[in-house]
């Protein structure tokens, strides 16, 4: 795949050697049967559905890998129970997108103590140094890319509406922070005229945008949203007000619907964090360790997010799904 180039740190499975790192268990051998538990945050977000699908596809290609999937349902207790069950079943490895970085730490440690290798994907757990790797895209960096895309398209400044995610959520905070960092630093000509939570959902994004557009005396030039669903809701509201084409809307996630909207001009851009690549890298890293004891060069395997506009649509991971 093309996007391999976006791996910052080598996802490369070059031998790091056993530099004093205690291997939890002996390598099982090159063609050994491997069973892994995959526990994504929730299947309610297409992001994780796609990540898991690509992960399973990569596992198929590797061969001899059985993937057991448990939906995290945005619930830390659910995830903890799933992992406890997997420890009892004696899986070889776990791939986890933790709902809460702190709450999941004890059970992850428990799994590692039981000789199970753990890779986190999309987001890390806190304070468990023995986690094999954290394969993730940095939300803060992605939001910086979003802000930079705005600055590039509006060099003379802009009035900006900011649709934030769920108040208090880490992803929401990071994405809000990254966009603010770039746009605040770009000078006073970039003005946030309204900042509201759209809770990452399309209906709330639509409602909030309707309300903001009515409340503002002047039409804003830019709407940035912390995910694609809210951006698409905002596009709906902008269209209903007859302002299509007058407000540049920036989404985040590179979802299928958003790519279609970028293609048709409803959205100015979306940020692709390459969830498929994250899933594939997570499973190949984990299986290489279980079979051959290979560790990644760094425990932080970062995927660089990219702003996708109509000009570089072909770089998007899910562009193949939107048809001609």
């Amino acid at each position, binding site marked *: 795949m093309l996007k391999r180039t976006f791996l910052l740190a080598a996802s490369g499975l070059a031998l790091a050697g056993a530099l004093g790192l205690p291997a939890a268990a002996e390598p099982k051998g090159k063609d050994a049967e491997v069973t892994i538990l995959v526990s994504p945050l929730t299947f*309610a*977000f*297409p992001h994780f559905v796609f990540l898991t699908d690509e992960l399973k596809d990569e596992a198929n290609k590797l061969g001899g890998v059985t993937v057991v999937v448990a939906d995290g349902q945005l619930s830390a207790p659910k995830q903890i129970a799933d992992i406890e069950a997997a420890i009892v079943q004696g899986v070889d490895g776990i791939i986890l997108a933790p709902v809460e970085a702190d709450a999941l730490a004890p059970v992850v440690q428990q799994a590692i103590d039981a000789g199970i290798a753990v890779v986190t994907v999309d987001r890390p757990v806190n304070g468990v140094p023995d986690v094999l790797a954290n394969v993730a895209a940095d939300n803060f960096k992605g939001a910086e890319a979003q802000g930079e895309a705005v600055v590039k398209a509006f060099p003379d400044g802009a009035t900006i509406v900011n649709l934030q995610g769920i108040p208090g959520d880490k992803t929401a905070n990071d994405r809000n922070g990254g966009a603010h960092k770039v746009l605040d630093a770009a000078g006073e000509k970039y003005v946030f005229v309204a900042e509201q939570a759209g809770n990452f959902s*399309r209906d709330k994004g639509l409602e909030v945008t309707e*309300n903001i557009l*009515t409340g503002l005396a002047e039409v804003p030039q830019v709407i940035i949203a912390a995910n694609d*669903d809210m951006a698409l809701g905002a596009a709906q509201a902008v269209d209903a007000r007859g302002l299509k084409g007058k407000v540049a809307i920036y989404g985040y996630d590179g979802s299928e619907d958003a790519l279609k909207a970028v293609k048709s001009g409803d959205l100015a851009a979306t940020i692709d964090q390459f969830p498929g690549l994250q899933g594939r890298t997570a499973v190949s890293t984990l299986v290489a360790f279980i079979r051959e004891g290979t560790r990644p060069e760094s425990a932080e395997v970062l995927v660089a997010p990219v702003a996708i506009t109509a000009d570089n649509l072909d770089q998007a991971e899910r562009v193949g799904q939107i048809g001609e």
Partner: protein
Amino acid sequence: MTKAQADELSRARMYALLGKLAPLIFLLALVIIFASLQPRFLLPLNLFNILRQVSIYGIIAIGMTFVILIRGIDLSVGAVVAMSGLCAAVVAKGGIEGRFMLSADGSGYHWALAALAAILAGTVAGLLQGMAVAWLSVPAFVVTLGGMTVFRGIALTIGNGGPISGFDEAFGWWGRGMIGPVPVPVLIFAAVALIAWVVLTQTRFGRAVYAVGSNPDAARLSGINVSGVTLSVYALIGFCSGLGGFVLASRLNSAEAVAGTGYELTAIAAVVIGGTSLYGGTGGVAGTVIGALLTGVLLNGLVILNVSPYTQQILVGLIIVAAVAFDHFIKRQSR
């Protein structure tokens, strides 16, 4: 009657009237506050915004009024909205590309069939839960808590976790269209509210609903088919949720499994703010309409004033409690 007694009576009457109007008074007070802080609040555009935003969970809150009147509760409505929206989407699209096809040539169906699919899915969901409540005597809280995850799961399965988007104009009219200056969902909400009001106040079924809610045993002894009423009420809220799901899918031009999250609490809040008792038997549709409007005005007004989302949550909670407390205070004065 002495003069003192007469005064006492007229005072009680006045409070009784005030009691009925308490939610409305609170609503008007909120409107005045928002309008004085931000004059744009009163723009016709904004008022129609509020009405449109209120209409979908308003439709569901109407159904919820019946459920709460018989001392029940339905936590599954948000999930049913998502599931029925996806049913409508699948029918409108004639299947899901690459997964399954409903029509031979892969073309979509008419919006009317899509709407029917949504309403049918919702009604069946409600009916099944009603059966468990009425015949198996499982507490409604438990049944619908289970239903909440079951129907959300079905919604996720239908769409494979992702959204189904892009419908034709005729489908979109139901959520985004206008008749004159009035958005179509508002008219649907008004029609549902009116029909529900007539049913509740003018029919035998309506009287049976109040009777079951006031005292199920007495209702049974006086010959009312309590199971039948219970079953019908849950089917009815299923119908409302299905309709809501269709309108929401049409409005968003997209159906997704996460749609309608939290609608159950918004709907229950609208019913309770409107003066319907959680202990059943008293309240009605008019109050629920006011309750839904109050919730809508609150959310809209705080956004228009650009209040921080953190502060908003504090204010929303406080104002909802204040609204219900005000209602109870006035009603206590009339006794």
